[in-house]
């Protein structure tokens, strides 16, 4: 095959005006979109999974992240070795009488007892001392307070006295419980000194008046991740598939131009993204009380910029790597860091290295633009981020088109 034979049909058809060529171009774009639509509509599994994907994604991830706000209870293990302090006919136990009632008196947001106390025996059946740390590990607990002998006596007669807190460092429950314990002990110290807190921090969530739930903050990120995964992996799989089936070579002998083909593939992804968006949005409304106010026209140009970016990235991946496994590996390398570093699910702005990398990733700007237009309604931010996303989109599309070859692989 000579280079002339493989030349793409870029030249306009002689004798036809610019508008005529444009009409023909649009016809070819519509034909390819129609072909894609028929292909998916004729496959029930494709329809099922295309619809199911955003639903599962929003439901599971929304439940995981917003579920962390739901009421829960904590278990506090206590090894109490305190003998108490005899005052007249009574024995005072500082932990049992003062600290434990405060701890067990705390309620969670559902009105249930927040902290349950589990007792750690001081000795086993053979009379051997029990190591509280080992006992905690055996019981799968996460935090244990060890109250020393003469705790009350020392607290009242010869302070300070030390309480040992043993915790499982990688447990979030342990961290929460530790903070509560430290606060209770702080207040107890304050009370014994006869003082009341002088300084106080009053915190206010800047959107508190608008009653925005945590799930609502997450939904724009989840929507962006859904259409990114779709556009990126589907582009990779389709382009590899086309190459294996020699579809590109066949297109060379058709009037279809590369630009028409790329635009039609991108527009098809955009149509799929709009469908996925509405499915995600309605799932958000039904499952997480997402407000209807979140629906705004700016979402669609932002999505188009996103689709351009990820379709372009998919084309670049298949342009660099020709085999299915290689293209998947590149797709994974592109998508997973973006999912975790773009602020879709958690904030990484406090980690200096990652926050710089995050600013280089297109998904960051798409999520920021969606969040600003859907949730915070800060449209200047939405425009700015949409502009950056569009710039990414144009650059990646151009590189993708340049790297996509229709000639047969050597």
């Amino acid at each position, binding site marked *: 095959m000579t280079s002339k034979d493989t030349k793409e049909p870029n030249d306009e058809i002689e004798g036809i005006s610019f508008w005529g060529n444009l009409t023909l171009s649009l016809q070819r774009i519509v034909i390819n979109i129609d072909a894609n639509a028929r292909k998916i509509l004729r496959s029930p599994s494709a329809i099922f999974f295309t619809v199911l994907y955003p639903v599962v994604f929003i439901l599971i991830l929304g439940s995981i992240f917003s579920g962390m706000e739901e009421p829960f209870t904590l278990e506090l293990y206590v090894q109490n070795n305190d003998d108490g302090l005899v005052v007249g006919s009574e024995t005072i136990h500082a932990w049992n009488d003062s600290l434990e009632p405060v701890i067990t008196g705390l309620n969670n947001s559902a009105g249930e007892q927040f902290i349950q106390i589990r007792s750690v025996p001081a000795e086993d059946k053979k009379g051997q001392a029990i190591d509280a740390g080992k006992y905690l590990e055996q019981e799968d607990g996460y935090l244990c307070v060890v109250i020393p002998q003469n705790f009350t006596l020392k607290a009242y007669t010869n302070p300070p006295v030390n309480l040992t807190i043993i915790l499982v460092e990688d447990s979030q429950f342990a961290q929460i419980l530790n903070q509560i314990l430290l606060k209770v002990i702080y207040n107890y110290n304050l009370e014994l000194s006869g003082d009341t807190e002088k300084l106080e921090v009053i915190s206010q969530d800047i959107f508190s008046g608008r009653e925005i739930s945590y799930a609502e903050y997450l939904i724009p990120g989840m929507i962006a991740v859904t259409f990114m995964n779709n556009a990126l992996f589907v582009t990779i799989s389709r382009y590899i598939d086309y190459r294996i089936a020699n579809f590109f070579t066949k297109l060379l002998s058709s009037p279809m131009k590369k630009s028409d083909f790329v635009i039609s593939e991108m527009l098809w992804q955009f149509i799929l993204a709009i469908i996925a968006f509405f499915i995600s949005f309605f799932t958000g409304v039904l499952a997480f009380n997402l407000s209807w106010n979140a629906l705004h026209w700016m979402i669609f140009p932002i999505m188009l910029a996103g689709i351009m970016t990820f379709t372009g990235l998919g084309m670049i991946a298949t342009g660099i790597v020709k085999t299915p496994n290689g293209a998947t590996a590149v797709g994974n390398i592109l998508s997973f860091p973006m999912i975790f570093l773009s602020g879709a699910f958690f904030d990484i702005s*406090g980690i200096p290295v990652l926050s710089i990398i995050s600013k280089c990733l297109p998904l960051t700007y798409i999520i920021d633009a969606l969040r600003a237009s859907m949730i915070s309604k800060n449209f200047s931010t939405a425009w700015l981020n949409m502009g950056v996303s569009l710039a990414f989109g144009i650059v990646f599309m151009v590189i993708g088109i340049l790297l996509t070859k229709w000639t047969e692989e050597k």
Partner: protein
Amino acid sequence: MPPKILEDTYYSLRRLWAEYQSIAISRFRNRIVLFFMLFYPALFIIIFGFVFGGAAQQEFQLYYFNADLQANGQPTASSELLLSHIETNLTQINLKEVEINLTRTSPVEWMQNQEVRALLTIPNGWEENITNPSPTIQAQVFYYYDPAYTSTITVLELLEKTVQEMNSELLDVTQIIQTNTITTPSRQDLSMIDFYVPGVTMITISTSGLISFVNYLNSEKRSGQLYKKSSSPLRKWEWSLAKIFWDVTFGLITSFVTIITATLLFGFKISMLHPLMLPLIFFGCMTFSGIGLIFGRLITNPDAVNAASMIFSFPQMFLAGALFPLEMMPNFIQILAKFFPLYYITEGMRDLMLPSTYHQVWPNLGITIAMGVGFFVLGVLISDWKKE
């Protein structure tokens, strides 16, 4: 003359080995692909090391507006003391002073317009409230935050701690009870990253294994390779087993790359590894390859296969408990997690990290072996070599 069964086994093993070699050679011949496949686990552990492993010191930007001024316009001594406390004790917080015209805008409006996530305001008369002898009046500072950024909650916790310390100093509170915090015995020499590496390794293997297997199967079908193989002496189970052996080999390479990266960059302790992790990796790879075979058979449309593999692999990544503790999740999510194979594999890996939890590994290892064998057999039984 050897019995027929031995002869069959010999030829079967030869075909299996030949298929395995052809997969391995095709992977190793393409250096770009090899680079990306090896770079992927390294990148994964680098990201998770920084995000979850506490490998980097966090830094937060806190804007402040000090309205507590003296008659000459200079900040009061108390407000300066609070700010110096923050600067000295909270090195991870970068303070930045701002001016807000409270007659024209509120702090909330100002933050929304300026895209500021965390703002501390010290109100006018704050020092007066501190020095006021009335026990009912508290001196309050106000912290405004954007809840979309979880780092703002960390800043709030740090601020509260500093204010508590300042309270104790101002009131001269006697610390009657003090605390000494230690970690559990088995974890004493371990860091956060040590707990993440085994789980992250399995996540990497499962996601890349499943998605790449589905794509490989798809391309073999499309190119007609599978159809051609149906006319060769190669049997379906030999082909499947060869691919699974390759996945196990690559799973081990992936684990090696992850562990080496974690050791070099974050000081991961090799002593955390246990020989029983090998069968977990082996049968884990077998499980995901088997699931890939089933997906490839049941779903023929390439777009749908991608969506289906992502529906499966993505949620299980979050539900395995390797990145986010399941204990914090709603009950139904904790139940749902148990339907995903990765849950048992990562639980098994975690059990093997501490001597105190070794005894818990057996049920998880047993389930992993059963899943590996079960999904493989089912995948082989239902896979089809007919032309699409």
